[in-house]
């Protein structure tokens, strides 16, 4: 159990590293574009497209990691009034609902990605990027998130501690 939790969190952190890389690349691409446009009157011609892929990847790949750090916010009206078993039941219920929701999204993104591969869909820009790549990152991020929520669910069921402490509480 402890081992499973550690492995899942390691996967989430690895995915988050890709998010971080995406963020750095977005900043880099924009700066490069500005320099090209201002000093050389040219362009990479794909800025808004690539930065768009960057935001999507950055957001979805970080989902599991943000969940585990307690950054994904929730309304604590009910939770704050519960503890012990009652709280674990509600937490497990929330996790189960989120698992179901994420499964739906994984399934429909899988359909999109598979179709993009089969049809050979590309972007309409000069780069003609195969669309399964950026959408694949979204799918991958959703799968990592699913795993992390599942780990969260198991912790509620078996009442085991998380591998990291949520950090938001001590920031004020």
């Amino acid at each position, binding site marked *: 159990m402890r081992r499973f939790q550690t492995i899942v969190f390691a996967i989430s952190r690895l995915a988050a590293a890709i998010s*971080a890389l995406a963020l750095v690349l*977005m900043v880099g691409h924009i*700066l490069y574009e500005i320099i090209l446009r*201002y000093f050389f009157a040219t362009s990479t011609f794909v800025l808004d497209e690539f930065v768009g892929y960057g*935001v999507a990847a950055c957001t979805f790949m970080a989902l599991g990691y943000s969940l585990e750090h307690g950054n994904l916010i929730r309304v604590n009206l009910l939770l704050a009034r519960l503890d012990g078993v009652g709280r674990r039941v509600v937490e497990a219920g929330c996790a189960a609902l989120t698992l179901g929701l994420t499964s739906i999204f994984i399934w429909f993104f899988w359909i999109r990605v598979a179709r993009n591969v089969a049809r050979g869909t590309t972007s309409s820009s000069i780069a003609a990027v195969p669309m399964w790549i950026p959408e694949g990152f*979204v799918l991958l991020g959703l799968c990592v998130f699913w795993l992390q929520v599942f780990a969260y669910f198991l912790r509620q069921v078996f009442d085991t501690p998380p591998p990291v402490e949520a950090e938001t509480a001590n*920031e004020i």
Partner: protein
Amino acid sequence: MEALYPAGIVGILIFIYLGLGIWVFAGLLLVAISSLMLVLGMNIDRIGTIAANIAYRYASTWELAAIPMFIWMGEIIFRTDISNRLFRGLAPVVEHLPGRLLHTNVLGCTLFAAVSGSSAATAATVGKITTTELEQRGYDRSLALGSLAGAGSLGLLIPPSIVMIVYGILAEVSISRLFAAGILPGLLIAFLYSGYIMIRCLANPGFAPPSGVRTTLRGYLHIGLDLAPILILMAIVLGAIYSGIATPSEAAAVGVATALVLTILMRQLSFGLFLETLMGAVRTSCMVSIILIAAAVLSTAMGYLHLPSNVAEAIAALNLSPFALLFVLSIFYIVLGLFLDGVSIVVMSLPITLPLAVQAGFDPIWFGVYLVIMVEMGQITPPVGFNLFVLQGMTGVPIGKIAWYSLPFFFLMALGTAILAVFPEIALWLPRILYG
């Protein structure tokens, strides 16, 4: 009245899901899915296709990109000496204002609004810098968080502004004029906020800690030095926008690069700290972006329910006088703002409300400014209010409390709207001077 039946269902669903304590983004998605299922009887195949399509579309928009980058810039400022210096430098400046450093939120957001086009990025960046400091120094939390939530939304009113660009494209009015028209109303609202803070602090001196510091001549000389990094940062970002080197959307990247260079020059940045800022930015922006994406799916669901357009049509059928129309529209937009995010409000209602407003004699530029203020008010009303989400994520204070703290600032915006309705020139004067 028939139009209100789906609205009731959506409202109840939001309270059930969010009240249950599920993650906000998941709750919004579940509301969207359930209401399409319950009201329109759509099957899961169709709903899933819709949701995945819209989620990907919104997740990969260029306009969203400014958010993670501005949040990163805020992280860099927050985790280095720049934020300390900012407060050290501002302290003597606001020394004699009632409420002292409480004005940093309003001042900071007003300045930052000139750089950022979104409300979430403004609240997140300034909040990252100010919330901890103000709390540690013993300032009243309700005024600190309330003013931050309220002032964060100035990001939309003071140019550049994503919502104004959307309005300009849809209403076919000049974006440059719209931008110019937003400046004075933005400052007006900022003054209302500051005035309110002063009144509250005069009435209740305990809201701000005792001053304690006596600024010497040498201290005054230090102000410039302390404020230099943040002023240089602002100057470079604004300079990049107004010289045409960078577009407003690109300004965020210039901001990150400048903040990095500054902290390197100040010998503040280690690789470890760099990673800390980066991962902090990834986490916060993931939270903000995923909620925005979920809200886009919810907005699409509302579009399928024909909710905003039906209600807007019902208003059109009332044949009201100009001021009565404005009043009813304001109520309509405040209610829409409870559930929808900014751009969706504009896009879904405009085809009906703009012709109404123009027919009633309102200038389309003025109406754009009015609409942006309405959108701003929606940012701080629960259950779906982005500045509230951002601040909850940052401080851990429950959303209900933050909403309560923000309420006075909500009414101040309503007051601002009323002033603007009586004196439309506040919006229309500047564009006329600039563009004839």
